[in-house]
């Protein structure tokens, strides 16, 4: 356990710079987005009210109030989130391959540490999870700050104020990364953890058997997906809706745990017996 914590600390320090850069880009871009979108709205209001000489009430009737949702729907807001997602997705592969590729032979050191090799797997997967949850948490901290910036720019009467919760729940993409309930949180992030662990196993298969490993990894991933969705397939095509939704949910969780267990076992086996530097 102590070695796992040390490895986790070490792995996280390795991504700390990238993490801070992603956070910085997200914050700056979203703040610029708030300013640009607010300015556009205010410019339009000024144009209509002063140049076209329509009054405030008419303007608001025609164009509506500005809400933070306009910012959230802009590329300024979604762009950096997509960048962070791409960063995390890329890092799932990079976190392993950078220890092998090029002049880097750090994998020798990792595999020769006097601890179970599965700790390397655990440390890397936890790093990915911390990175993801960290990015989402900071997004939640950024949101009220960004709302504050908008509020300072757009006068009261031109604004429809929304709470952070209202903003998150009104956009599907946001409600996935920031779930509304504990059950959803466990399900969404559990599914994420499962996907990352299957990808890790695929990577370890490739690292163990090279070209043949890529095919093995693809077959393994496909098999894992089939096992995962087997209750859904049975429900749909064989049992004609025999299970209640809650039973189906429990079955899915059980399947998820089985696949996660198999994936961890397989990764441990590959790291102990098949991996090659």
């Amino acid at each position, binding site marked *: 356990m102590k070695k796992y914590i040390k490895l986790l600390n070490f792995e996280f320090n390795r991504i700390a710079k990238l993490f801070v850069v992603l956070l910085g880009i997200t914050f700056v871009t979203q703040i610029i987005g708030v300013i640009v979108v607010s300015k556009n709205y205010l410019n339009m209001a000024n144009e209509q009210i002063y140049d076209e000489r329509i009054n405030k009430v008419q303007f608001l009737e025609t164009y509506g109030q500005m809400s933070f949702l306009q910012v959230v729907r802009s590329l300024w807001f979604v762009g950096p989130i997509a960048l962070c997602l791409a960063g995390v997705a890329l890092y799932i592969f990079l976190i392993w391959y950078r220890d092998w590729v090029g002049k880097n032979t750090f994998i020798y050191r990792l595999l020769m540490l006097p601890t179970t090799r599965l700790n390397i797997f655990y440390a890397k997967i936890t790093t990915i999870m911390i990175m993801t949850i960290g990015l989402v948490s900071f997004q939640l901290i950024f949101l009220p700050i960004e709302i504050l910036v908008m509020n300072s720019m757009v006068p009261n009467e031109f604004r429809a104020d929304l709470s952070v919760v209202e903003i998150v729940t009104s956009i599907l993409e946001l409600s996935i990364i920031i779930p509304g309930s504990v059950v959803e949180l466990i399900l969404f992030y559990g599914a994420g953890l499962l996907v990352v662990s299957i990808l890790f196993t695929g990577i370890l298969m490739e690292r163990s058997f090279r070209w043949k490993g890529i095919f093995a990894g693809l077959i393994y991933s496909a098999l894992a997906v089939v096992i995962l969705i087997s209750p859904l397939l049975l429900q749909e095509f064989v049992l004609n809706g025999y299970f209640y939704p809650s039973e189906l949910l429990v079955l899915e969780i059980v399947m998820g745990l089985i696949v996660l267990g198999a994936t961890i076992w397989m990764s441990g086996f590959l790291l102990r017996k098949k991996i*090659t530097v």
Partner: protein
Amino acid sequence: MIEVKAVEKNYGSKKILKGVSFTANKGEITCLIGINGVGKTTILNAIMALTPINSGQILIGGEPIDKHTFEKITFIPDAITMLPHMTIAEAMEFMNDFYTGWNQRRATELLGFFRLNPSDKISSLSKGNTAKVNLLLGLALDVDYVLMDEPFSGIDMFSREEIANVFTSHLIENRGVILTTHEIGDIEHLIDKVVLLDDGMVTKEFNAEEVRETEGKSVIDVMREVYQR
């Protein structure tokens, strides 16, 4: 004792090791000699469980390798096993963090021996100094066995001399060393045991001192006999 028993290793359809067997004792320097591509590095990787073998058995102190073995044996590959952006001090701290057998007093002694500056970044070091850091990280561990892959390869003459001096010092004493090389010149006088490899097989295994005394032959003489047959 490290026992390598009938080890076979294939890369795809190519057979790299074809039943390699030899032993390396504690307190002795065993040298694996053979031309490039003969499987020397693969043997060291296999001993450290860094690559799987197809058949055979490897025992360290009578036991197959497991996580605890890495406190008893260390491997110094021909490339640095630390991250390039780390300083030498950070690399030593990493070792201290993970190995109970890390001997800081010996590490400091080695720093002085090799005249290395702990605040230097690994990426900024010359090839010779990088090899010395790699050696330092391995030798500062209180382990019974040290494996070294081509410790003299591509290194300038003076660094080679300094590294060779390590072998005659107390830094190596009482440990079992397996080292690989394809150029025996600098270290012939240091070796206790020689394992000659050719085409994935052990062609001869002998005690250097014994052959010198009984047959009046140097290691190079024996190599000439074996390889130029």
